[in-house]
């Protein structure tokens, strides 16, 4: 298959980056001096048997390089230790948290991309006009306001009308029909997702606009125009697809920003996701949770980056050579 080597190369890169992240994690939590306090076996109120079991499981009494290999093996089995604060396996807790984070982040990011693309294309089309200036400056400002401030502002404005925190109404019991739960969660998701949309869309607007302007200057756009095609059609059929290619790259690079933003948002809205879990872990000195959270978030971003590489591969036939 043509271009298979591109896919393999990017896949290999993703794998290596995962290793780098794991190694950084190991280094920070196990190798640095003063990490005795982060030792995985120091679960508070743990029985001596548990402590011993953990010590054996993670090889905490062995030399560092051996610990590293054992760590890798454990990770492969999804074993990230026991949470200091909740006395439960870290992976179970974090997977549950991740399930809460994903819908909110997905909705917010997709909304941001949609708004960004639409405003970017319109701005490029009407370059230099008042709507262009307004839209561009709005994008800059939205991007410049700190994510947490945007969240707080939305809270202030909508505190009465929309749920101010949590993912669901604690008073809704399990007996309620599923769609009602869905509606409830959906309602709670509005503000956090809206905050994520507001904080992320600005960069997309600017890049789409710039990329579209660049594309509109390409020779093949002039060719399309020369064919007698009306402007709308030229944009839709020829310019759009080409203009979006750099955007795919940018969205992928920006995932770190999305993750950071989601973290802050979960804290503000008490959204029970992985971000809030990490925040709590800081406060509770729950180091296994902190490690696990970092690893899961990082791997998620790496995987998404790889997915973006694949998407780019699909969209741009030139890469396939």
């Amino acid at each position, binding site marked *: 298959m043509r271009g298979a080597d591109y896919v393999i190369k990017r896949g290999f890169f993703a794998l290596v980056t995962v290793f780098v992240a794991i190694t950084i994690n190991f280094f920070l939590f196990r190798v640095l001096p003063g990490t005795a306090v982060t030792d995985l076996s120091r679960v508070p109120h743990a029985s001596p048997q548990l402590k011993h079991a953990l010590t054996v499981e993670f090889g905490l009494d062995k030399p560092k390089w051996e610990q590293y290999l054992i760590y890798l093996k454990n990770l492969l089995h999804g074993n990230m230790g026991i949470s200091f604060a909740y006395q439960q396996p870290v992976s179970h807790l974090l997977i549950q948290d991740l399930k809460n984070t994903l819908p909110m982040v997905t909705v917010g990011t997709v909304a941001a991309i949609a708004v960004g693309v639409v405003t970017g294309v319109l701005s490029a089309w009407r370059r230099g006009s008042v709507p262009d200036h307004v839209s561009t400056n709005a994008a800059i400002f939205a991007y410049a306001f700190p994510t947490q401030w945007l969240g707080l502002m939305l809270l202030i404005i909508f505190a009465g009308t929309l749920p101010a925190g949590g993912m669901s109404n604690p008073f809704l019991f399990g007996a309620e029909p599923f769609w009602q739960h869905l509606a409830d969660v959906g309602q709670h998701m509005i503000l956090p997702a809206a905050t994520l949309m507001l904080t992320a869309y600005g960069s997309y607007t600017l890049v789409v606009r710039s990329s579209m302007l660049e594309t509109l200057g*390409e*020779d*093949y756009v*002039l*060719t*399309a*125009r*020369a*064919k*007698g*095609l*009306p402007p709308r*059609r030229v944009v839709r*059929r*020829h310019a759009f*697809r*080409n203009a979006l290619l750099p955007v795919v790259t940018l969205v992928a690079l920006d995932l770190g920003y999305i993750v950071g933003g989601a973290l802050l948002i979960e804290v503000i809205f008490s959204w029970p996701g992985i971000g809030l879990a990490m925040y709590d872990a800081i406060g509770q000195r729950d180091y296994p949770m902190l490690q696990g959270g970092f690893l899961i978030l990082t791997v998620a971003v790496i995987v998404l980056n790889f997915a973006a590489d694949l998407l780019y591969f699909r*969209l*741009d*036939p*030139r890469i396939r*050579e």
Partner: protein
Amino acid sequence: MSLLEVSGLHVWFEPPHAAEVHAVQGVSFALDPGERFGLVGESGCGKTTTILALMGLLPPNASVAGEVLINGQNILAGGEDSVQAYRWKDVAMVFQGAMNALNPVKKVGWQIAEPMAFHDIAQGAAARKRAGELLELVGIPAAAGERYPHEFSGGMRQRAAIAMALACEPKILLADEPTTALDVMVQAQILELLTGLSRNLGLALVLVTHDLPVVAQVCERAAVMYAGEIVEAGPTEMLYHAPRHPYTRLLFAATPDLYGQDAVISIPGTPPRLDSELPGCPFRARCDVPLERCAGEHPELRLVGPGHQAACHRNELVEAS
């Protein structure tokens, strides 16, 4: 009535932060069906702008005056919107450097078929079949239509661009430097192709180039442009062997001999700026035989032989004597 008649064409550009540039200054010429006409000059003399203006393919900071008549109809009369109707059906263009004139993410066959579908000449499978036939006509196997532009060599891309230009059976083909950036063997083939198409299909051809041997090979008539104006026009033979304008004479003399036997004479100096109106002959500063009146009086195009015009004060001396 000629097939194509350009009358008093002027084009101005308004660059940002700079004075207006008068890029084309009163160009007029006419073309009959099946005629091959060359437009020659140095870079920046306005020849590309002229033919772009013939199809209204100008940027927003341009303004145009004059008429472009196709079968008696002034296609520029209604601005961009009205000229759209004539594009590709009556007059089509092959751009400089077809490398970028083809959309990189669309298959070549699709790009050829697209205007057919839009202008209701053929749809779907019929259009694809016709695209294949056009590719064969220009010397490319029909199956290549399933490939992307980056898979074609430079010469093939140029041929594909020509095939694409013929998609809606235009009566006039404009070719802007069709052989620049191609190697010599391929150049010859492309020129042969263009000549053949003109003869067999009765296609009128306007060939823009700075390469004089090209004009000599393909075109029966030609016009020499300098600083936005036509300074001499007539049968190519006459321009070559009996030029009546110093610029034409120097230009043809400056062409390196294919066998490298004659010395290369280059014309010292540079063309004048086009952002201010200068009195007198635009070529005066570089002319080797200027007269006194050349400094203050602008020479007009006058007949100096059958079908042969030149804009030089010296011709009056010849007439007088």
